[in-house]
């Protein structure tokens, strides 16, 4: 760890003033990413501003939307009765991530900003454009089994690690921000940016901004939804491929379909081609298999992760079987 100073703030205004006065500072919430990366010297701030005491711990269910404060813990959100009943995919995604201890610590806002698990990002001796712009990407010619098949560039192929953000993408969530220019909202699908030639920039958060919370529009409340995560071990592991699927299912017909993918892309990945296959059509095993294949479109596998192409397609198909209740037998070839 570098020799940073520590301070805490107790109001949102105090947090914004602190970060404006100390542009080299970083916010600390649950600490499950930040403390780890401080210890690895990946983060070397002059000052850590602890925002854990800010009054952002409410989950409020309104008429039009549910608003989740940025400091609600992943556990509290996952077990919240409104979330489990209105947005089961969010609860399922949270409970599929990390461990009981980490979910108790990790915040909603921190989850949105968690850093990639690409091992080269954490290894200071390795080239990594995300950590040190211009140094290169060790993953492109190195071990890249866990890396992205969607949204990568010649500068970065690191996956976004979060399960929660994949579920949020499938329910059209919006992120509430505040900063020097006041409050604003950004849709999940606009918040993250693909690496391109600036992989150090992961999202549209502006300097000095703070996440206040996440808004869940009730247009998606109460619909069928499901999160399926495939990983190397049964628990406490990041996704090789995951799918969040949500739709209105009426008489077997799917409408308002949302499919988002995790573990396979540089950002939470909306599988629009797969959505289009399903939209307005009656679910059948053949249709769900077709949607799975559509989810594979545009994949650009690397040396070690060609298996992810078929894996993600089958993950989507299997998740859709859970969503629709159609029995999942052997998949057509």
């Amino acid at each position, binding site marked *: 760890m570098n020799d940073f100073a520590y301070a805490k703030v107790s109001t949102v205004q105090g947090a914004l003033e602190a970060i404006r006065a100390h542009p080299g500072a970083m916010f600390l919430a649950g600490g499950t990413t930040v*403390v780890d990366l401080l210890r690895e010297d990946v983060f070397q701030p002059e000052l850590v501003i602890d925002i854990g005491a800010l009054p952002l711990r409410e989950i409020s269910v309104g008429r039009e939307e549910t608003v989740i404060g940025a400091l609600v813990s992943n556990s509290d959100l996952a077990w919240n009765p409104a979330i489990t009943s209105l947005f089961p995919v969010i609860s399922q995604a949270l409970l599929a991530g990390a461990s009981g201890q980490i979910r108790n610590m990790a915040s909603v806002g921190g989850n949105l900003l968690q850093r990639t698990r690409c091992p080269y990002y954490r290894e200071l001796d390795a080239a990594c454009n995300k950590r040190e712009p211009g140094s290169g990407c060790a993953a492109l010619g190195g071990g890249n089994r866990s890396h992205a098949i969607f949204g990568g560039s010649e500068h970065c192929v690191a996956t976004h690690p979060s399960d929660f953000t994949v579920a949020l993408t499938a329910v059209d969530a919006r992120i509430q921000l505040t900063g020097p220019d006041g409050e604003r909202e950004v849709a999940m699908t606009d918040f993250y940016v693909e690496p391109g030639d600036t992989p150090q920039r992961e999202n549209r958060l502006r300097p000095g901004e703070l996440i206040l919370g996440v808004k869940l529009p009730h247009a998606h409340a109460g619909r069928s939804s499901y999160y399926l995560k495939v990983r190397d071990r049964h628990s406490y592991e990041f996704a090789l491929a995951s799918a969040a699927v949500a739709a209105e299912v009426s008489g077997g017909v799917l409408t308002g379909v949302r499919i988002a993918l995790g573990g396979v892309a540089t950002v939470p990945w909306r599988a629009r081609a797969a959505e289009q296959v399903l939209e307005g059509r009656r679910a059948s095993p053949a249709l769900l298999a077709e949607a799975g294949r559509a989810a594979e479109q545009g994949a650009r596998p690397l040396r070690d992760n060609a298996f992810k192409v078929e894996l993600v397609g089958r993950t989507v198909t299997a998740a859709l079987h859970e969503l629709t209740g159609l029995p999942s037998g052997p998949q057509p070839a």
Partner: protein
Amino acid sequence: MPYPADDRDGLTRRDALRRGLMFGASAFVLPRLLGDAAAAEAGPELTGVQPAKEFTVAFTVNGRQVNPTVSGRSSLLEVLRDPLDLPGTKRGCDHGQCGSCTVLVDGHRVLSCLTLVASVAGKSVTTIEGLAEGTELHPVQAAFIKHDAFQCGFCTPGQIMSAVGFLKEPWAADSASVREGMSGNLCRCGAYCGIVAAVTEARQALGHRRA
């Protein structure tokens, strides 16, 4: 606990280490304190004071009020073990991957290695040393002994604290959740069968009888 720690006569390895560290640290800490002069009871608020590198933090551990002088970089794990002299909480990976440093903060299980001690100001911490009531073991401790749920014992305090926290969480009502609920704690000896049996039994002893 089956193996009482550090109660032998004479100078233990821990004492020797601590004396060496304290001697080394004193020359470092004092100028820091004088230089930053920002000691505050609950950790420094940024407004109106300079950010601090050394300060005191007040919280309770196992019901006892403590007020250690810490660095902004100190983890709860480091401070529990030394200077608070509660070495039951173990440093395993120090990266939030093994669970051996699990403690309860305000009743919730957390990883003390990824918790900056400054962030527990005003909170209540429970470690393995605070679990038994007098000589009466907590039901999870008793179940671990009964089911031989350890071999080397290094991960055991974290396993037990994690189980105590888990059994207060909503999903503990489902008996099938024990393996998943305990997945954040690794055991290199592979005592998992005993651990699952112990947590399952403790779950029943603590009154989870549904499902």
